[in-house]
């Protein structure tokens, strides 16, 4: 029963839809607003005023459709994607509704697969509706917009966004299989989305303090840190040029691998830990060490301007930061265990 499973189940799929449709409809409305509706508003302005004055507004919308054109609005879409994906499993754990589903005639693999399938289908539907609406708006204003956008740009945008959100869904669901509730799942996902970029910055910053290196030296000696940052999922949302277009097979492979990892983790989840911070005891040790080290590096880097460059002050910052990080982790684990 606890095997990896790829069987579609109408009941499970329907349940996911009925449970999450509010969030997806809100996401759809948001995406429609920042894409086709914004374009229509821009065109209305162009008609009411003139194209030159409306063009900057239209350009902002059109830029969002280009690879690497993500802006703050797209960042909100990214966060919304994480939250929606995380609640697919996290809310079931937090509310313990997962227990009555586990007692029903489904394998765990089947439960995971249908959640993933629903999430993917919903993201595809949201982007497909957006792409079709954009195509209609462009077609209706082709005389003006043909100069700035082609239909294949919309198709390209649809494909890259679907691939990106498939990767995001897999990435988030892996952390949902490690975390015992939706909040922990969202926090872990966001932290690890930014982790390769963030940790590289922290290590560089601390290396500069400890070894008294300049920016140039750090860049020279520690350029290997860029590899992780370049490959991180987060960077793809804001990648320049054609990176996204050229690396989509890698992203698809990334999604598939993480899907399998997530399903395997769910099959092995000790369900008595639903509602807690983490689903696996050994990971608590990893979290303690990880947060302690990151808090040390953060404290070392953040308070540097205030200590006059004293070695003793640096050690003190590390100690205080580490102690704080350890305490935060311990408290979070202990509190979630009481609720679990």
């Amino acid at each position, binding site marked *: 029963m606890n095997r990896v499973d790829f069987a579609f189940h109408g009941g499970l799929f*329907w349940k996911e839809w009925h449970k999450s449709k509010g969030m997806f409809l809100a996401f759809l409305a948001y995406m429609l607003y920042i894409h086709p509706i914004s374009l229509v508003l821009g065109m209305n302005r162009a008609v009411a005023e003139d194209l030159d004055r409306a063009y900057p507004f239209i350009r902002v919308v059109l830029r969002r459709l280009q690879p690497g054109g993500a802006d703050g609005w797209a960042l909100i879409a990214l966060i919304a994607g994480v939250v929606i994906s995380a609640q697919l499993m996290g809310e079931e754990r937090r509310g313990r509704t997962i227990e009555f589903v586990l*007692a029903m*005639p489904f394998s765990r693999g089947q439960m995971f697969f249908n959640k993933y399938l629903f999430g993917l289908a919903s993201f595809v539907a949201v982007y497909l509706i957006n792409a079709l609406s954009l195509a209609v708006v462009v077609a209706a204003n082709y005389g003006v917009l043909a100069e700035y956008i082609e239909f294949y740009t919309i198709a390209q945008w649809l494909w890259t966004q679907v691939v990106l959100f498939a990767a995001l869904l897999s990435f988030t669901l892996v952390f949902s299989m490690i975390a015992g509730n939706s909040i922990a799942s969202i926090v872990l996902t966001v932290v690890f989305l930014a982790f390769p970029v963030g940790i590289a910055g922290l290590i560089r910053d601390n290396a500069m303090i400890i070894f008294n290196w300049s920016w140039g030296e750090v860049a020279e000696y520690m350029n290997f840190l860029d590899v992780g940052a370049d490959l991180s999922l987060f960077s793809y949302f804001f990648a320049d040029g054609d990176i996204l277009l050229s690396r989509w097979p890698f992203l698809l492979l990334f999604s598939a691998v993480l899907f399998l990892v997530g399903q395997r983790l769910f099959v092995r989840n000790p369900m*008595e830990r639903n509602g807690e911070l983490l689903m696996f005891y050994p990971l608590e040790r990893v979290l303690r060490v990880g947060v302690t080290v990151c808090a040390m590096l953060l404290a070392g880097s953040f308070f540097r301007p205030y200590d006059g460059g004293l070695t003793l002050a640096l050690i003190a910052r590390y100690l205080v930061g580490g102690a704080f990080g350890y305490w935060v982790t311990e408290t979070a684990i202990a509190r979630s265990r009481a609720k679990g």
Partner: protein
Amino acid sequence: MLKIENLHKAFDTTDVLRGVDLQLSEGTILGILGPNGMGKTTLLKCVVGILEPDRGKITWEGMNLLTSVEAKYCVGYVGEQRNYYPRFRVEDLVRFYRMSYPNWDHEQYRRLQGIFELPSEQRIANLSRGMKAQLAFLLNLSIMPDLLILDEPTSGLDPAVRKEVLRVMVDQTAACGTTMLVSSNNAGELERICDAVAFIRDGEIALQGPLEELRRRFAAVHVIFDGEMPAEIADCCDLLYVERLGRMYALVGRRPLLSRLQAVDTVYLEPVDTSLEDIYIYYMEGPNHE
């Protein structure tokens, strides 16, 4: 037949179930009694697949309940918490169950809805604890289960609904031959509906058997000795409980206690009925338990 063999489950380093063995014939109702935190709920959750045991085997009619999805088509579960999706309406859950259980019987559902009178359009969040319990029964009896697992099924119910629920459980077994495994802290309630009971203590089955057989194995007596209680009775390993009321002793013990008492001088000796609650309390908490 439900067969549980050598079931082990630990939470981190704490052993909750330590080699549970249990057998349950078709069409019988087996009650599980035990102190809080001794593994009753864990055992039931392992049977229905919510928790995965560390070791052991659970079979229903020869099918492995831990590995076969098909085996669970005819297994219902009424948990203690009854955590359903709060934004769902009753009719949504009914739809989900209909889509998930091939044996769903809508006629049975309508019949039971007539008994419980749950409004279909009501949201789960607006249902009381008692109504949620009724909904759990409604759903799990409508899947026409051959095996029904119930964890504290009547907790939080008012007396009238509790009576109705117990009646429905007995009717279901009588009419459809449904086998039931019921965990409860209410020995009196289990005594009314169960054919057999098992006591669980420290993650192990301490005692199990048909209810009548258990009653025959234990005896409660009121006795007045000619003088003090003889040492061969006081030290007897069959004696589980002693209470002194003036000159009279209320004793509870295993059946051989009666013949031992008949062999000593007594002024007054009267066997009294042993309830399941007596057996449970004196067996589980008495000084001479096995």
